């Protein structure tokens, strides 16, 4: 079974078509890069897949559940890390983990065991009892990632997870994504850092609400006779008519 399977998915806001008949699928355990310029419709598409937004038309299944009827079942099987830090700033790292673990139905015992493990694995021992508000951006993103994968979802949606952090922090972040993928978690990542696309198994490139290219980084480079995914993106993005809003 595919982790994500989408056909002709569309979202219109009034006369504006934010997402225009996109079709793609993601395999279980895959790291899927969802690329596109700002305003191309990546976040809108992702919000539909997470059950935060109702689609206008098209079909979609996430973790085997329908994105119209079974949004609550989908939510049980996914993790979500938003572009903006959206954990509780007035709770500590450990308290955030505990809260979301509890919301996803983990028992206290399970939470305690796993929380120690995750904190050690991500090197967050010193930050464990600090309020989230006092953490630097790079650490906040680590904590967000830890929370979004804490309940071992089948799929984790990461919306611009590395926005605004330095290359070293980005590198360690991708190592975390790989470790999650090793545990069998499918990662659906949006980014506009083209070098990060090379870390993905497959990528799609979105322009003006449509998916213009889809394949492994190597396939795309040979198809567009480009040296890097960045060059592929450049040649596609030049066709864009939509002005960044």
């Amino acid at each position, binding site marked *: 079974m595919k982790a994500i399977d989408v056909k002709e998915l569309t979202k219109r806001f009034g006369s504006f078509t934010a997402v225009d008949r996109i079709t793609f699928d993601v395999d279980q355990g895959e790291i899927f890069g969802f690329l596109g310029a700002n305003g191309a419709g990546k976040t809108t598409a992702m919000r539909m897949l*997470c*059950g*935060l*937004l*109702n689609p206008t038309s098209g079909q979609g299944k996430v973790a085997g559940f329908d994105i119209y009827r079974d*949004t*609550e*079942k989908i*939510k*049980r099987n*996914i993790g*979500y890390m*938003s572009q*903006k*830090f*959206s*954990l*509780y*700033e*007035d*709770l500590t790292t450990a*308290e955030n983990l*505990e*809260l*979301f*673990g*509890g*919301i*996803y*139905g983990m*028992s206290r015992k399970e939470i305690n065991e796993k929380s120690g493990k995750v904190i050690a694995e991500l090197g967050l021992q010193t930050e464990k009892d600090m*309020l989230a508000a006092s953490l630097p951006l790079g650490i906040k993103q680590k904590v967000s990632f830890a929370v979004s994968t804490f309940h071992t979802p089948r799929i984790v949606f990461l919306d611009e997870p590395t926005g605004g952090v330095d290359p070293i922090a980005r590198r360690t972040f991708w190592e975390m994504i790989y470790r999650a993928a090793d545990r069998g978690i499918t990662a659906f990542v949006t980014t506009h850092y083209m070098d990060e696309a090379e870390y993905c198994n497959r990528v799609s490139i979105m322009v003006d609400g449509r998916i213009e290219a889809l394949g492994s980084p190597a396939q795309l480079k040979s198809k567009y006779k480009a040296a890097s995914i960045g060059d592929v993106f450049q040649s596609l993005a030049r066709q864009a008519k939509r002005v960044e809003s």
Partner: protein
Amino acid sequence: MKALGFLLKKEFLQIIRNKFMLRLIIAMPVLQLIILPWAATFEQRNISLSVVDNDKSTVSGRLIEKAASSGYFRLTDYADTYTHALRSIEQNEADLILEIPGNFEKNLIINQPVKLMMSINAVNGQKAGLGLSYITQIVTDYNSEITSQGVQSPISIEPYYRFNTKMRYQDYMVPGIMVILVTLIGGMLSAINIVREKEIGTMEQINVTPIPKYVFLLGKLIPFWIIGLCLLTAAMFIAWLIYGLSPAGHYINIYIFSFLYLLAFSGFGLMISNFARSQQQAMFMIFFFLIIFILLSGMFTPVSNMPHWAQVVTWFNPLRYFVEVIRSIYLKGSGLMDILPQILKITVFVVVFNTLAVISYRKTNG
């Protein structure tokens, strides 16, 4: 439902760590109960009185003295002519002019009717009306004093204004202020708390989890129900401590009704939070409704004095029932059976407000 425990822990941790919220919760009942009953009193003291005495006799002097020593008036001006006195009203120095005609004493002694003239600055209608009633009563008293001193009079005059001479307004206002307090906690704080989560984005993180919406909403409301009842307890303690006021009825009835009221009003707050996108928006919506609710609650002006259509509007005002109930328990000692009609009505509000709140709360947007 297991998640509820985690949510409650989180909510209390946040309230304790939010210094502003904590201070607000502590300061609100104390300040409201210490300051408001005195400010929201209808009793008028220190009404500025200007006297024009055209008689300058012993009798007129005694009348003036009686008015000045009543405690209600401050003799600000002792004018020669009425025109002079009127000027002090125009300059807002006097609220009331008492003009005593010439031959006042003489006419009284020969049993001729005498007329006193009073002019009132009615800019503050309440003050004017009460000032008039006070001075009328003083004159009436004085009248009966002198008639009993030998001046023959076939009828003994009863004071016809018995309005608000020694009545303690605090006894009346303090229970009303408890209503405002519980309303603010149940409706306003909970609504603002939820909208705050929308604003900072944590709401989205919650909406992407499988948590049922009623569990999340319960996690939000239970802390405010608890805080509301704790503050009510604090308010009743302060009322006893400062005003020596304790309910003539049972405390338990106050708690029963207050809890139902909190359920109803927090549902209302939830509805507001579902429609507001920012804390400011929520605040303005709450102010809009709160002012209407308070003015139509009978807290300051009796519902029976309102025109019929306004009385009809008050049927849809939960505050009205709470004000009625808490006053009747505090002052009349009403029992559970006496407040049963209001209990049933507030239960309707609980059902309607909360149903609408759960329907209008959406985890998925269109």
